[in-house]
């Protein structure tokens, strides 16, 4: 559930005073989204976009850490299999 996709903030915009918006880029696709839920975002941040809203910012460090952990889990086995 809840289709959401990471996208990079490329600009803060405010076309309509009733709406806090930003422009995001996702692999060459750009769209205006609402940042009412994460007003603190800055250009360059990655946010999770769901139904035209940024839900949260993505942590580059945590992403790295997760990938590192995965690689470690896999490497454990690589080591195992290389030793097997």
């Amino acid at each position, binding site marked *: 559930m809840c289709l959401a996709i*990471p996208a990079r903030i490329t600009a803060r915009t405010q076309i309509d005073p009733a709406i806090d918006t930003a422009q995001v880029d996702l692999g060459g696709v750009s769209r205006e989204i*609402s940042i009412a839920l994460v007003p603190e975002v800055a250009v360059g941040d990655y946010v999770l976009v*769901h*139904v035209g*809203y940024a839900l949260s910012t993505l942590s580059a460090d945590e992403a790295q850490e997760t*990938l590192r952990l995965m*690689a470690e889990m896999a490497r454990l086995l690589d080591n195992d299999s290389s030793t097997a």
Partner: protein
Amino acid sequence: MKYVTEFRDQHLAHQLAQTIAAEVDPSRSYRLMEFCGGHTHAIFRYGVQQLMPPNLRFVHGPGCPVCVLPMARLDQALALLHEYDVTLCTYGDLLRVPASGRQTLLKAKAAGADVRMIYSTQDVLQIARTEPHRQIVFLAIGFETTTPPTAVLLEQARALQLKNLSVLCNHVLTPPALRAILTPSLEHAMPLDGILGPSHVSTIIGTAPYECVPRDFHVPVVIAGFEPLDVMQAALMLVRQLNAGRCVVENQYRRAVSAAGNLRARELMARVFVIRSSFEWRGLGFLPDSVLALAADYADFDAERRFPVSVITAPEPSGCDCPAILRGLKEPTQCRLFGSACTPDHPIGACMVSSEGACAAYWTHRAYLAPTAAAET
């Protein structure tokens, strides 16, 4: 695509699969429920189940907002269209979901009702502002992920004093559903060994609300991202907890989910909504404190007040096993309508419509289903 492509790496996947295969205890089985349809979708789309050892089975949960919406709520939306000639805005997901008598919003639209597919609640605001002479009703569905955008809309509507906008609220809460799933019942023959926790719901509510699961039901939870490597890593984390006899909430999806979630969104929801004392979920029945309604300050924007309709609660379609499937008690192939009377082109239950529905997922992967799948469970 950053934060996406890395988590779909085929090489890493095969290594993780080998690790899991190496670590599972061959003498036991692992029944891991992915609560979210998002996980279900990833598992089928990337063939994750096929990469798992035979004693590790993913069990599909009720985490699809379309699937758990009771038919009566769709009937209500249709009655409202019919009786008040409003403009009904909703997400594309709902257009083909069957209401009573196989009626759908798409068919109602074809018959002349003003049904608009929107992509964002900001589209609803736009429509309400540009068509002041129409009454615009937003048929809101979704778990905690999708709820804050509705709250933003309602705050804007109130600030702009829009008189032609209202919301038919069907926002549901994850924790009560999780509890319902785990509460032992007579029919609940096969217990679950672990839970893959929601990814995007958790970006909003954080990890704390899941603490009750290990505590009260002795089932470990790993909050997992929706990419296939996320699912596999989370499965491995659950296997390790189970093998080690641990039972806690862990967070695999740390890049997007914090312990506290999105405080601003939570505050907003608390301001705009109140918890309904009881509400029916398709499959799970009436669950206490599981659904949101508009708070008193927003009562003027409540479509149920503005456009009262009396709908005779429709019985769920006979023969449809959605209720059992949503609780993880049956697999879609065990429904006798699966693939015969019920297909995505002519769905009987909501689980066959949503691309996150277990029945639709099974159908789309029917080439890979053993004909004896029904007998297996």
